[in-house]
């Protein structure tokens, strides 16, 4: 069995890429995808721990996270669509009506 550190570092890298995507990308859809990447990193971590400890709880958690991600995407895309209808843009830099 591959030592757990490999999985954890892999997940951490994935998480970091996700964070970087949120911080740097401007397209709302891509920002959203980056967040999904972070959630997937979490899933990898859960499964790695679950496998390591022979404990099923972590894998159950993963199912919930996946469900949740789906729900979030559903709502998120709806909001993005609504936004696009009004603003004709999905650039996060354009969302600056509310500030200070």
């Amino acid at each position, binding site marked *: 069995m591959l030592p757990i550190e490999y999985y954890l570092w892999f997940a951490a890298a994935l*998480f970091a890429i*996700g*964070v970087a995507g*949120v911080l740097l990308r401007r397209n*709302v859809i891509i*920002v*959203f995808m980056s*967040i999904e990447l*972070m*959630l997937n*990193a*979490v899933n990898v*971590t*859960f499964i*790695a*721990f*679950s496998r*390591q*400890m022979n*404990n099923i*709880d*972590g894998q*159950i*958690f993963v199912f*919930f*996270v996946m469900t*949740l991600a789906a*729900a*979030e995407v559903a*709502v*998120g895309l709806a*909001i*993005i669509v*609504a*936004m696009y*209808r*009004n*603003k004709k843009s999905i650039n*996060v830099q354009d*969302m600056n*009506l*509310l*500030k*200070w």
Partner: protein
Amino acid sequence: MIDFQIVPADFYLLLPEMVLSVGAMLLLFLELFLKGNKTVQQWTAFAIFVVALSLLLSQESSGATGFGMMVRSDLFGQFISAVVLIGGGLTVLLGKEYLVSREWHRGEYYSLLLFASVGMLFMVRGLDLLVIFLGLELLSISLYILVGYFRDRLFSNEAALKYLLLGAFASGFLLYGIAYTYGSYGTTNLNEIRTMGSPESMTFHWIGLSLILVGFSFKVALVPFHMWLPDVYQGAPTPVTGFMATTTKAAAFAAMLRILFYGFPADIAEWMPLFWFLSAVTMTVGNVIALQQSNLKRMLAYSAIAHAGYLMIGVTVGTETGAAGMLFYLLGYLFMNIGAFAVVQYFEGKDETRLDFESYAGLAKKHPLISLAMTLFMFALAGFPLTVGFTGKFYIFTTAINQGFVWLIVIAVLNSLISVYYYLRVVIYMYMKPLEEEIEFSPMELPAKVALTVCVYAVLHLGVLPGNFITLAREAVSAIF
């Protein structure tokens, strides 16, 4: 052979949540038939909140757990759940008028409020990080929609999208933290974590707990996790803002307290310096920026950040009395803030142009009673004696200073004195400036009047005779220590 066993007590324990969930779906369904009848929708939603609240209060607070330690019924959970349900009920009463005047009255509003409340109830009554997390997400997703409720308005869109992106981002951190906690304890159950005492891996434990705290710091808006809050509060429909500002804060703080104090009692002392710092920075930043606001909703948003800082003192102190002070203050904060937003929503007008201080000039002459109520809420938020703002702050401050947090309280007192400036400014404008223009407001409807009266009464009652409720809060927190 597996022995299937379903214990009725488990379901009895979750009755409030079940009533709320079924009610929420029922309202969605009723929307089909009751499209025209707004009053029925409103009162149905209100009745559901009342039923859930009475079921909640009728439960025993013995600390019984259900569904394999997934949820726990104790006085702590009951106290905050009651805060949430009262807040939900008041928001239902306040919402209809606001939505009708903007021609946006839909049944979804009520059912989303109910779903959000279910989420919060799970957050505060859950004993497993999984349940707490799911509750948090149910709450968040409902709120994303509620914030973006006016889907043809840019402000609403932008607030919702910001909230969604940052909320999901913070959820990522929270989940990552839960994963590491799971890695270091082999379980996500707070009770098991508590019994285990020490983790298998100290590093994992610390990373896990820090990231969980990031998630909750985001929800309660501690600096530097607060940036979303002013924008979202400003862009959201005003009743929703009031709902978010009070109930969500209560639920998130309660979940944070339960995780920290119940799950990781050994860690509190270690975290103290960081909490101290977060508390001091949060209240200062919130107050100082609030001084510069001209939009009332945004001012109240920064004031909410400042209040998160005051409440954080209770976590910093880390004793039962500190937590009790927080609970009591959260109860009081519910009434003063929902009341303040109720007045804001009444005065802002259909096109929401009357949100700055100037438009409050001279309103006291035309609307003496509502202005008086607003004055009371502002005084309460500023912490004037005889209001709950004073008793609550006073209790937290004395507790903290008794534990030796002198400098933190020096900062807190200084802050609350600064804050008087911007709260009182509203009062000054209402009473001391000449009326700018004659504007006719449609008279407040009965439900909103009832809600406002309840808020006024509660602010005064808790300010003058807080004794029983402080005692109750003290009993409640003993459940998580």
